[in-house]
């Protein structure tokens, strides 16, 4: 039986830990550990919530009204409500810097995916060509994770891009707008496939269409953004709770792991952590250490350990993230209709565009607007706000947005390092690939043509190229490879420089496909636990 110290309770960490526990190993998890409030009135729909709460404005907008999106706030809008602000709170003294990148960090139980939109997309064999293992090994991981978390989806036109796997539940109920888009697609399918190489279908989502353990099937309450009160929408804290039920699991929350001490032959001997408020220090003896603190923080822990061991200035190269572009649209056939408040709030359908090679596939999630707040949307219309609010009412049910994702490659210069002036703090650097602008333009033209064919109007000049870092799919700083040099990991995620340290999050990805990576993070963490322990 191994004793493994795991840093992080995000999607990667909890599935790695659960697989170890199931195999009879002992796990101590060191974690940021922030937790959020329990959602009120768990049986209320979004609209009922506004009626039942004593002070709905403060619940939905925050005690200090920080959830009001004011014009030109200059910040990227994630739509995360104040209720979920705990997910992004930093420990005292944590002050990363970045150039060309807007990173998000989480020190919460469950990590960043406590705020995710639950898109779960298996990669195909072409997309993992650079990964040093067979697709079948990952497929087993997908199936284990799907059984644990519940993934809904369908064998439709998008299955050509996303392999089917066992454990797929029936899809969620469609809202009227998504249904209309799919109906229209059925009529225009051959044109879209042949002319634009564009395909539509159901997205795969980790939201239950039937009960699973103590989590209930989606009851279409329309509160997904504010936190599903019945656990239908999976978040990693559910798996953390499952780990906590194991006798071999110890959880040390409320801690910031800064580094590990190094002994003979580069072996990690002791993990050093301080309490989140910086007042206390704790040390954990290490047999085996698994870093699952998210790509940026895991890289930071490795770098700080090397710095304290006298390694000088090291930066880990090859950081990747998906460029995302938001393309809003108005579906003319939905104008004047009421929006559905009793519907699943996030994307239910998606769009795939074939690239020149299978790895150049472009992935889009289509979200039709339902219970989202309107003030962040209508303020950008070129009218007075009274008129904009009326236009919002007339178009609410007709609005949608495609979140278009592009793949990324490892490139030198895109790195995670440590600040010289401010020891211990991260510096993230990123520059897009040359030719990115043309690639984006070409693809967005295709997306707009596809939307028009589906009966939608794409307002010119309203597409929004999100800053790098906004997709929150970070990867690539300590890549897995069959025979690599320094600062790589072996196919089991074991560091080639630090023989008892495993990287079980996105650090190890040698390529970043366009599909959102979290399902693969979880499957890969399971694969590592099953193959290395």
């Amino acid at each position, binding site marked *: 039986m191994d004793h493994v110290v795991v840093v992080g309770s995000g999607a990667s960490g909890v599935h790695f830990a659960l697989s170890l526990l199931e195999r009879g190993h002992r796990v101590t998890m060191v974690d940021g550990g922030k937790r959020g409030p329990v959602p009120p009135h768990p049986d209320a729909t979004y609209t009922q919530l506004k009626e039942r709460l004593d002070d709905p404005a403060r619940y939905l907008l925050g005690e200090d*009204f920080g959830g009001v999106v004011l014009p*030109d706030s200059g910040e990227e809008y994630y739509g995360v409500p104040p209720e979920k602000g705990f997910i992004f709170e930093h420990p005292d003294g944590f002050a990363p810097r970045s150039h060309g990148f807007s990173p998000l960090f989480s020190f919460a139980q469950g990590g960043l995916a406590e705020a995710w939109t639950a898109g779960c997309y298996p990669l195909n064999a072409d997309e993992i060509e650079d990964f040093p293992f067979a697709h079948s090994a990952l497929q087993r991981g997908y199936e284990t994770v799907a059984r644990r978390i519940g993934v809904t989806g369908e064998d439709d036109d998008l299955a050509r891009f996303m392999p089917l796997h066992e454990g797929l539940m029936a899809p969620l109920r469609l809202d009227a707008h998504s249904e209309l888009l799919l109906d229209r697609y059925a009529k225009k399918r051959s044109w879209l496939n042949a002319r634009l190489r564009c395909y539509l279908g159901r997205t795969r989502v980790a939201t239950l269409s039937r009960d699973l353990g103590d989590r209930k099937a989606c009851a279409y309450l329309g509160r997904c953004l504010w936190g599903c009160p019945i656990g239908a929408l999976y978040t990693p804290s559910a798996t953390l709770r499952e780990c906590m039920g194991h006798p071999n699991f110890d959880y040390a929350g409320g801690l910031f792991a800064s580094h590990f001490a190094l002994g003979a032959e580069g072996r990690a001997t002791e993990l050093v952590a301080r309490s989140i408020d910086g007042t206390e220090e704790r040390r954990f003896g290490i047999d085996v250490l698994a870093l699952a603190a998210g790509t940026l923080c895991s890289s930071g822990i490795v770098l700080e350990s090397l710095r304290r061991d006298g390694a000088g200035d090291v930066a880990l190269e090859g950081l990747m993230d998906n460029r995302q572009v938001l393309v809003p649209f108005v579906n003319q056939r939905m104008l004047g209709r009421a929006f559905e408040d009793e519907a699943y709030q996030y994307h239910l359908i998606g769009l795939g565009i074939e690239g020149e090679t299978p790895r150049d596939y472009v992935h889009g999630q289509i979200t039709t607007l339902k219970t989202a*707040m*309107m003030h962040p949307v209508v303020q950008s219309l070129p009218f*007075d706000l009274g008129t904009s609010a009326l236009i919002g*009412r007339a*178009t609410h049910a007709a609005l949608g947005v495609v979140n278009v994702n592009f793949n990324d490659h490892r490139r030198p210069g895109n790195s995670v390092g440590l600040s010289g002036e401010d020891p211990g703090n991260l510096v993230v650097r990123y520059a897009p690939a040359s030719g990115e602008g043309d690639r984006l333009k070409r693809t967005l033209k295709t997306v707009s043509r596809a939307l028009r064919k589906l009966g939608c109007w794409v307002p010119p000049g309203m597409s929004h190229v999100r800053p790098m870092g906004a997709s929150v799919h970070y990867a690539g700083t300590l890549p897995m490879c069959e025979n690599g040099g320094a600062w790589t990991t072996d196919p089991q995620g074991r560091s080639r420089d630090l023989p008892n340290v495993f990287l079980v999050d996105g650090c190890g990805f040698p390529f970043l496909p366009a599909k959102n990576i979290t399902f693969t993070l979880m499957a890969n963490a399971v694969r590592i636990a099953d193959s290395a322990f």
Partner: protein
Amino acid sequence: MSSQGNQLRREAHAFARLLAGAAPAAAVLEAYLAAHRARPAAFRGTSFQRVLVSSASRSAFRARVADAYARMFDPAGPLRCKLVLMLAILETTPPAHRRLDAPIGGSPAAALLRLVLYGLRSVGSLILGVILFTPRRWFTREAD
């Protein structure tokens, strides 16, 4: 009651009428005042921006004209911030949210026609706003 409190109440009334077609409920008023205490920096402005807010607070009609002007020439100024704040409060608070959540029904063609009419009305407000506020902007700039 302080003169600032009175001014905020006047604004709240005019803005709620513009955005939701009715006077603000007590909870809306309370939230509007509380938000000004919580995020004061967002609502401060130059003397011309104060002129815009003051003019807008007289009636829903004046608010539309001032905001049509602000949307083009002062898009992140205090008037727009205050209106966006009010919209956020109204869309989360009963009974105003019921009105804001209700569709403006009819067939897609009727809805489209309405949108065109709304747009034209806003353009009219903008023209009026330019006539009213451009000279005042010059004047206050010289005075500042």
